[in-house]
């Protein structure tokens, strides 16, 4: 190779991409050392989840020029994580994932700072999330994705022409895997479809009808679910079943075996029992590595503009040959989450209490136990008790007064909504208009008068 003196640098390889001008690039690409340094100094990334994807993401991002990372995860390390969550060792079992993952990456990559948060995502207030330039999701739950998506979309503001304002856009990159399959997607709220726009991509899980379990079991899974959903409650009145208690699991297994023998049904094993009861999704290192790498690369491209970005959904399937496919999904123009916000028209006399009651009956929202925020300040909080007490007196005040007597404003509400018999935490953005103020007449404001 040619004899050229090269200044040794840690970012030897990344510099080629960030310091040199390119021909196929994204918006606002401004190559140079400053870009590299700004990426390290000013770009804060939140990684949601420190599991199979999260471990990979932290490593990939830390080796892609990001130096200010935070990670949030409520779980502790289990033995079954060790076949893929490469930042964890056997001695770490029982410790919080976020903390161990952050520590391990910082130990190996100097100059990188990772702040762990060992808690539920709903425990953080919205301000926490507003602090990041980009949020990368490594989750295995639809509910959690949906929640973070709503948080990111809640920051989005629209101008008077209902065009999203770029500076309020909080990009999301989302990954997911199951066995040999996975996806990576980029969500630019207001521009590309948000999680809720394409919620049909994640159909709800099919459950067995109870009458099948009780009367006409045919498969091993039916016998297991009978023991789990029917027999347990019959025998243990009042005692909650704990899937993580091996004694409980063994009981379910034994009952399922008995039932299977009774009906002549083959195939009940302990492993299958665990799989059915805990709804275990098979997971391997390679697929997590592929999906996380794609997500980290997109995060780098979005924040620096060093190349084009994925538009907007990548699917990967390695089971039968190798298939990757990019699909350009379109936004749902009427999306409640990434759209300009649900329009609510009120009399100026409506109190906060009445407003909260109204949310429960609103057909698009059906939101109960609402906590209400306006421009970052809490108008009413359901929890914790100390905040509830502090904000309780607001309930009897007119919302119009609480919002500073302006004709319109954006309100964020969090609460629960029931879908398919399960309660989920949701966050909604509402555009509130008051009648008869500032010459704005009744139904005239939908287009943003």
């Amino acid at each position, binding site marked *: *190779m*040619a004899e050229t003196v*090269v200044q*040794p*640098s*840690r*970012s*030897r*390889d*990344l510099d*080629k991409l960030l310091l*040199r001008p*390119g*021909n*196929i690039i994204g918006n606002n690409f401004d190559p140079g050392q400053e870009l590299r340094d700004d990426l390290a100094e000013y770009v804060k990334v939140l990684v949601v989840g420190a599991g199979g994807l999260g471990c990979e993401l932290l*490593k*990939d991002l830390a*080796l*892609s020029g990001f130096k200010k990372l935070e990670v949030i995860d409520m779980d502790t390390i289990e*033995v*079954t994580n*060790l*076949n*893929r969550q*490469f930042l964890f*060792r056997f001695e770490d*079992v029982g410790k919080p994932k976020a903390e161990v993952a952050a520590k391990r990456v910082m130990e*190996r*990559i*100097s100059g990188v700072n990772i702040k762990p948060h060992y808690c539920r995502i709903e425990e953080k207030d919205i301000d926490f999330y507003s602090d990041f330039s980009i949020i990368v999701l490594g989750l295995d739950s639809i509910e959690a994705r949906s929640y973070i998506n709503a948080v990111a979309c809640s920051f989005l503001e629209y101008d008077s022409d209902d065009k999203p304002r770029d500076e309020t856009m909080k990009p999301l990159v989302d990954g997911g895997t199951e066995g*040999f399959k996975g996806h990576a997607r980029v969500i630019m709220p207001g521009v590309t479809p948000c999680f809720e726009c394409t919620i049909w991509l994640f159909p709800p899980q099919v459950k067995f009808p109870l009458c099948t379990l009780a009367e*006409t079991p*045919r498969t091993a899974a039916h016998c297991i679910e009978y023991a789990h959903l029917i027999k347990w409650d019959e025998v243990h009145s009042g005692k909650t079943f704990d899937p993580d208690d091996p004694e409980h699991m063994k009981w379910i297994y034994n009952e399922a075996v008995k039932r299977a023998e009774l*009906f*002549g049904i083959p195939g009940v094993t302990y*492993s299958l029992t665990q799989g059915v009861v805990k709804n*275990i999704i*098979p*997971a*391997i*290192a*390679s697929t997590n*590595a*592929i999906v996380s*790498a*794609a997500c*980290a*690369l997109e995060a*780098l491209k979005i924040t620096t503009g060093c*190349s*084009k*970005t994925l*538009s907007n959904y990548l699917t990967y399937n*390695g*089971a*039968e*040959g*190798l298939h*990757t496919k*990019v699909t350009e999904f379109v936004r749902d123009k009427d999306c409640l989450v990434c759209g300009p916000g649900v329009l609510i028209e009120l009399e100026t006399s409506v109190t906060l209490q009445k407003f909260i009651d109204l949310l429960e009956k609103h057909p698009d929202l059906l939101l109960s136990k609402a906590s209400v925020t306006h421009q970052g300040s809490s108008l009413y909080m359901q929890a914790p008790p100390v905040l509830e007490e502090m904000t309780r007196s607001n309930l009897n005040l007119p919302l119009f007064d609480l919002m500073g007597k302006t004709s319109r404003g954006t309100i964020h509400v969090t609460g629960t909504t029931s879908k398919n018999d399960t309660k989920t935490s949701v966050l909604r953005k509402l555009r509130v208009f008051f009648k008869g103020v500032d010459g704005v007449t009744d139904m005239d404001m939908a287009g943003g008068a």
Partner: protein
Amino acid sequence: MAEPKTKYDRQLRIWGDQGQAALEKASICLLNCGPTGSETLKNLVLGGVGSITVIDGSKVELGDLGNNFMVDESCVGQSKAKCVCAFLQELNDAVKAKFIEEYPVTLIETNPSFFSQFTLVVATQLMEDSMVKLDRICREANVILIFARSYGLTGLVRISLKEHTVVESKPDHFLDDLRLNNPWPELKSFAESIDLDAQDPVALRHTPYVVLLIKMAEQWVKSHGGSLPSTREEKKEFKELLKARMVALDGDNYKEAIEASFKVFAPRGISSDLQQILNDSCAEVDSNSSDFWVMVAALKEFISNEGGGEAPLEGSIPDMTSSTELYVNLQNIYQAKAEADFLVIEQRVRNILKKIGKDPLSISKTTIKSFCRNARKLKVCRYRSIENEINSPILPELQKYLTDEDYSSTAVGFYILLRAVDRFAANYNSFPGQFDGGMDEDISRLKTTAVGLLSDLGCNGSTLTEDLINEICRFGASELHAVSAFIGGIASQEVIKLITRQFVPMPGTFIFNGIDHKSQILSL
């Protein structure tokens, strides 16, 4: 030490104890342990492969800390192979990890027999001439070879071996084998034993759709001169008949029957894919034949004799609305037939083994049983040698990719340019854009090199975009971590499929397109 069954639970649910045992027996050799190689092995060590040997002759430099998680500051100046190996060992103490501080290129040149000790070689960041030589060595020694390379925002993965046969291909969606339009005597008489008209509504609603469809198909055949519904109108009519019965009853089983009626319309006999395997010259077996082909020979005999044109029955049925009793009885009938088919095939396998001078018991019952259960899903993958692909790629394919302006144009451009940069490096002793300065000259030299390459390949008229050539020079042979992790992820997944002999490995050359993710497999 964790109970291995628990530690590997999430992957055992994918490839089972047998797949895991195959992994634990495998010995893997890695050539070059930059990020691409290190990430590939990381995923394999976590999964519990038997042993790894890391081969790299270089020392860790500061720049390596920026793209490889397996080395840290304390490693600078030390053997890269040693440092990477030590970190990999930390991930799983069940894996035997060792390293050799040596340049792979030197080993390929001076010690070709070295590679025959391994199950599989993962060769990363090799240039074309070394790839050709290593490929020859590994094919000769029957060692599985997989190439992986990261290069800026692109890269490739390529499997190379003569032949890979798969019994447990585990496809996602595969039509179950219920023989609704071709029931064997026991199934037929079971269906006949149920008189739908004499049943009370509750029993009728709990009659499995398999029975409904067999009866319906038979009725149809009787009234239509022996043929099944084949035209669109006939198929519609068939479904209407079912619907008419359902309306009176409102049973889920009829709904399922309507949804499954396409299974009645499906042609009898075997698929063209399976026919192709039966026609393969390897199905003419001799003493050198593998167990797989011996079993294929037995399968071929079965299909044209006892099978009456059908493959052996799998024996499992999907869940369907039914009373427990009818379902369990039905399942037993399918299983009994599958067992009977298996016994015939087993006998044929033993006879063939004897005929070709092998121990008739050399293939186990379990192996034959699994073969029978998967007979309709067999896969045979063959890979062209690297030398053939390089010297005479399949021209119509190449031209097709080159003229496809939409999806694959960037990917095929990267394919050509990844080859062009190796030619460039052979001529100019460095990769285009590898060092700062002289970029314009490198761009024009790479362009000339690429044009020359295209013309050597017989694609004279084709051109690559200036943009892509510029980008390749900008990449300057960098190994970006995220790209390496992606390429390494793909490579490790293919290794797992090859070693477990489950699922289907990718064909051709995978070209990664890190610009917009429109990656592509090129079959050249």
